[in-house]
């Protein structure tokens, strides 16, 4: 049987999107009262929850303490029920440690860590449902959670994946597109300055196509940042309404 046609001749993807269109994004901030900051995001069927604690004193071994800036501690995990097959996912497996490390690098680039020397900021992210673009959902959720916690950042960090099918860059891949065998790239962007916080790509891609692909991912990140900005503003409005009373 023929595999799936990821991009039809009419220019529609499997789920009916055009190549540059994102999935539907819905997000909420301040979902938990206990944590310092929290957020929930849905990008299509990918759902992620992020929680932020801190800045607080460095816990555990004192040796980790940095004297000029805060330590960022990230933990990524996936719920057992997040994929089509139920699977127990122990902490610290290779995939999630790698993801944790990526998140850490991303947020070290975004958070103004030098404001909090000798302290620690914890970011916990959990994927509740996975349908491609886990990294991007995590970053976007964590950004909202960090904002919710009131930790100052240089800019929003927005992340988005992009793939390359039949010489066309596709933005925001879903799971079928990701596993369809093509190249996929994850990019985290600080949209205002246009700085790239993280860029990751595992598969092979010809150099000539890289610019087009990155451009597509960056455009997607910028549109995402608009959506996130909207969410933050709406959240602030709600909160200020509540506090005024």
């Amino acid at each position, binding site marked *: 049987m023929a595999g799936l046609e990821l991009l039809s*001749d009419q220019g529609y993807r499997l789920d009916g999107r055009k190549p540059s269109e994102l999935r539907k994004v819905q997000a909420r901030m301040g979902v938990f009262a206990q944590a310092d900051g929290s957020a929930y995001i849905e990008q299509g069927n990918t759902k992620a929850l992020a929680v932020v604690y801190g800045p607080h004193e460095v816990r555990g071994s004192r040796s980790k303490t940095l004297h000029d800036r805060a330590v960022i501690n990230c933990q990524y995990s996936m719920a057992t029920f997040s994929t089509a097959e139920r699977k127990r996912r122990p902490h610290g497996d290779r995939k999630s440690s790698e993801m944790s490390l990526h998140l850490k690098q991303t947020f070290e680039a975004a958070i103004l860590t030098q404001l909090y020397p000798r302290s620690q900021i914890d970011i916990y992210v959990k994927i509740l449902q996975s349908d491609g673009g886990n990294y991007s959902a995590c970053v976007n959720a964590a950004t909202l959670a960090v904002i919710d916690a009131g930790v100052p950042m240089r800019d929003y960090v927005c992340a988005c994946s992009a793939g390359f099918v039949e010489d066309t860059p596709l933005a925001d891949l*879903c799971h079928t597109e990701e596993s369809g065998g093509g190249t996929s790239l994850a990019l985290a962007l600080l949209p205002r300055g246009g700085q790239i916080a993280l860029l990751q790509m595992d598969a092979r891609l*010809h150099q000539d196509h890289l610019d087009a692909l990155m451009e597509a991912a960056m455009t997607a990140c910028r549109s995402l940042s608009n959506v996130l900005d909207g969410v933050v503003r709406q959240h602030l409005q709600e909160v200020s309404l509540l506090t005024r009373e």
Partner: protein
Amino acid sequence: MLKSKTFVKKTRSGGVMKIVREHYLRDDIWCGSEFCVECKQDSTVLQQDACIESNLLSSPHYLIPDTNVVLHQIDILEDPLIRNVIILQTVLQEIRHRSAPVYKRIKDVVHDKEKHFYTFTNEHHRETFIEREQAESANDQNDRAIRVAAKWYSEHLKNAPKAEELKIVLLTNDRANKEKAEESGLVAYKCEEYIKSLIANPELVDRLALTSDDQNEITTSKLLFPEHLPLSRIQAGIKSGSFLQGTFRASRDNYLEATVFVHGEGEESTEVLIQGLQNLNRAVHQDVVAVELLPRDQWVAPSSVVLQDEGPKEDDKEEEAENMLRCEANEAMLKPTGKVVGIIKRNWRPFCGMLSKSQIKEATRHLFTPADRRIPRIRIETRQAAALEGQRIMVAIDGWPKHSRYPNGHFVRNLGSAGDKETETAVLLLEHDVPHQAFSQAVLSFLPKMPWRITEEDMKNRVDLRHLCVCSVDPPGCTDIDDALHCRDLENGNLEVGVHIADVSHFIRPGNALDQEAANRGTTVYLCEKRIDMVPELLSSNLCSLRSNVDRLAFSCIWEMNHNAEILNTRFTKSVINSKASLTYAEAQMRIDDTSMNDDITKSLRGLNKLAKILKKKRIEKGALTLSSPEVRFHIDSETHDPIDLQTKELKETNSMVEEFMLLANISVAQKIYDEFSECALLRKHPAPPPSNYDILNKAANSKGLLIRTDSAKALADSLDEAKVDGFAYFNTLLRILATRCMMQAVYFCSGMDSDFHHYGLASPIYTHFTSPIRRYADIIVHRLLAVAIGADCTYPDLMDKHKQSALCNNLNYRHKMAQYAQRASVAFHTQLFFKNRGILNEDGYILFVRKNAIIILIPKFGLEGTVFFENKDKPSPRLTFNEEAPTLTVEDHTFHMFDKVKVTISLDSSNIQHQKIRMALIEPVIPGVSVALPEGEPEAKKAKLDR
């Protein structure tokens, strides 16, 4: 604009898995009609004037075919008459899953602007999306989706101005679907019904494929074939090892015999023999089938009988024929034998051939005989049999029910009258899958604009070699000159030799339509009187052709050599050259031999010739083979284009001179691109043949008391040189002809995908094709690789992708093979024309092979092979004794050995106009009742001519 909707789908892969996919519905999918004013579309596909003369519908209408109609009646949809069709996404996807060839064809049709086919993405349209209902099957859901989309179209276009007349017509062969459609107020027709209503175009009716409802008439109650197993059982059987999967290859000589080529794990692949109609079980040549091996005691040996299906005959005769196959054979000859239990994939294509008209005058069902003898006859239904008689036609197979002796098919198109040169050429091109249409506008648009001249831009990365005394040597009448040579003395006493190859990759840029077309064609095909170009003529005969006294772009390979032809230094560069002379082989030879000529060109040629001789000697010492195959060349009458004379090609010293330097260039380039790109260099290899291939050669040599050593190429070359029989000068050539047939096919491959690079025939560890980019696509790729390696051009992604390269190699190998077959077929056809005009001749020949009921004879004078049969339908057959070991065949009292000299008459047998054959009859040795008498009068006249 974006509305999200999710649905749940279950799929089975090991266990049950729930797959959740998003499904976005849009409101920006337009209808594509010229009538519409609501949709904000940029361009429209469906015309206002969508009228075909039909007695069912007088108004303009758009057609919406359902999946089965597209799948089965694709020939109708491809007809230029059928336009303004809406192909729904639902239909397209279902086709994609069910038949790749039809999917490709329908996509081509959709891309054709003239056809006005529009693809409507109905499943993502807000108003035509449907959700699966409780207990609804996938098929029912698709049918409903098609109806909903058709309904939407008719409602949507009702509102458009001027579209009151417009109808949306649903074409479906499914009765229930049609009824439901009519209930909901749609216009729905069966496909046959609609096509038959097109009164102005009755010829379309013949192209209708037979569908299962109307094929029940010519059936005997008897089931002729066993049922095919369902796919699930086949798969289970293959998994458990009780069935084997392989490609079915029918035998050319015997319609009751076939082999199934089973691809085993890794290198292992076996052949399974299939014998008898029942066991063949409706498999057609090239199908992928599942076979079951028979128990060992039922294994048989491949019969060496030549047997042809003579058309409908009685059952008992059929059995008789089958019995003939079974012969006592010794244990060693038995091959694994099996029977076909199921078809995994049909590989049907439209077949060329001729109609064998039914004896009953008014009959509409006729048998069609394909030109390819490996394809069974096909039963078709047509009302224009009288008009089609004597014409070459194309027919597609629709199906092969188990109670029918022949498959059912339908007429596709008429190619022209048989025997006509144009038609026959078209047939052989079609049968060998040679793309031969004129180049499309899209392709031509990438040609350089005339008048063309070399610009500053072109000179970047190029060396000016216009001052060198370059000349080209080619066969007479050659217009696509792709190589030129030069040789000059250097100040240090060494020689500089240059091979300059047309820089085709400068004009054909990667990825454009011109490039894709060339990649698809793969090679230029040379037929006897025609050339099917790989690149448009402007390039092949003008801009790329290295003609004399014009500036041309070239890719040069320049060596510094000493007088012993040892390479001291190799240099590759893009260049501009100005050839000083275009010579033929004969002219070049004359210049070399003529001591009075001492100009630069002649000196250069002499230098080249001297070096070439040393190079050749070195190559032969290393074990390169010199093989022989009889090649003929026709003298074609300039007026009628009929062949008037036939002569075997003769080789001059200059032929081998040019060849030697081409080989050297190819080898140097191969080494360079492999060093630079070890993963993705395109190379050519020639595998050593397995020892069993040499059996026939050994037997042949043994019959003359000689021994041929075949353990290495060198040993083979040496023993071939030594194999001589006194008083039989042609023996050595015959042996070489046989040796050629033992060889494997040389193939292109990508260096990253293979580890064996050796070229057996040339005894070179590495080889590629660099020197003929005008006529071979492989050379263009090699040029691009080399250009990147020397920094003269930039790379592109597909060049460095070994999987894509490997796919390209497969296509090139296929095209080369097919081009060779087409060339042979063309020569055969012209030979027939020649003998048709010539009549019977009395010629000397040699026995090349001995078969069970025939001998195959080679006539050196014409390079012609023919068969002498000892069995005849209307005569009692003579006593035949066949000895497989030697091999010899004893007819009455005379024993035929291989290489025996015989005299035969040659004539053209046109009793079967489709397979006109060269018929040979024995004159000497005289065997009563078998050989024929010498035709009187004529030989004397011939002798007289010789005496003069």
